[in-house]
């Protein structure tokens, strides 16, 4: 009898984890896409040196960080995966969401301080595990650049200086 109750509890958690997790994920993706369009004017690159090395710039570090946890369903599927190996599709969406969110928060940090360009963007991922479940922390950081004097040459327009 106790076994049945335990099993029933497990199945309930699985179902709740699946449905709740799917809803949360869809909403998060919708929010991410909306904000990506919003922040399309803040440019981010992984290059190390600024595209324009002549104009004096104000440079400062900006970052974005987020911690996303996996739900019961994802953890259970990952546990089963460990028997056979292979791609963990359920965790891949988790990682992608976390990275895109971290990048958006980095752009938000840059825009908040008046920058429209971030270079040398790096990502650091960490796992925070609470016993059996995993939470992912993604930390994105980069250097934001603001031209010292607004010479009227906004980035994106053709520059008179040689590239």
């Amino acid at each position: 009898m106790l076994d049945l109750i335990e099993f029933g509890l497990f199945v309930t958690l699985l179902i709740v984890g699946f449905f709740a997790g799917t809803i949360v994920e869809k909403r998060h993706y919708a929010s991410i896409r909306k904000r990506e369009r919003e922040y399309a004017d803040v440019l981010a690159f992984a290059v190390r040196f600024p595209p324009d090395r002549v104009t004096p710039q104000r440079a400062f570090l900006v970052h974005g960080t987020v911690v996303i946890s996996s739900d019961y369903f994802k953890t259970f599927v990952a546990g089963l995966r460990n028997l056979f190996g292979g791609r963990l599709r359920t965790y891949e969406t988790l990682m992608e969401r976390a990275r895109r969110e971290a990048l958006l928060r980095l752009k938000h940090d840059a825009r908040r301080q008046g920058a429209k360009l971030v270079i040398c963007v790096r990502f650091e991922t960490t796992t925070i595990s609470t016993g059996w479940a995993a939470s992912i922390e993604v930390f994105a950081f980069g250097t934001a650049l603001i031209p010292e004097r607004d010479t009227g040459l906004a980035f994106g327009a053709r520059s008179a200086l040689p590239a």
Partner: protein
Amino acid sequence: MLVSNLELVPGRRIVAHYGIVQGSTVRAKHVGKDIFAGLKNIVGGELKGYTELMQEARQEAVERMIAEAQSMGANAILNVRFATTSIAAGAAEILAYGSAVQLDGP
């Protein structure tokens, strides 16, 4: 698709920057490899099974990064970096990211 962890490509000019591209994959090992690894822990030496697993995963991550760059219309990825994280469930995430650019020339 040219992939490099250099800042620039000698002899070629960067015409346009298209932004950050990422490729990632999360892979789990299977029980067989795990048991074998446990045994290997006694004698030491290379865990060929795991080496292959990580190599495949890294290859997959790079291919996805290239796919993202191609969908943007870029023809090169510069400043490529790799990050590996282990996720509690005995799985590892390989992340490859870089800057998608348009190079001139042939």
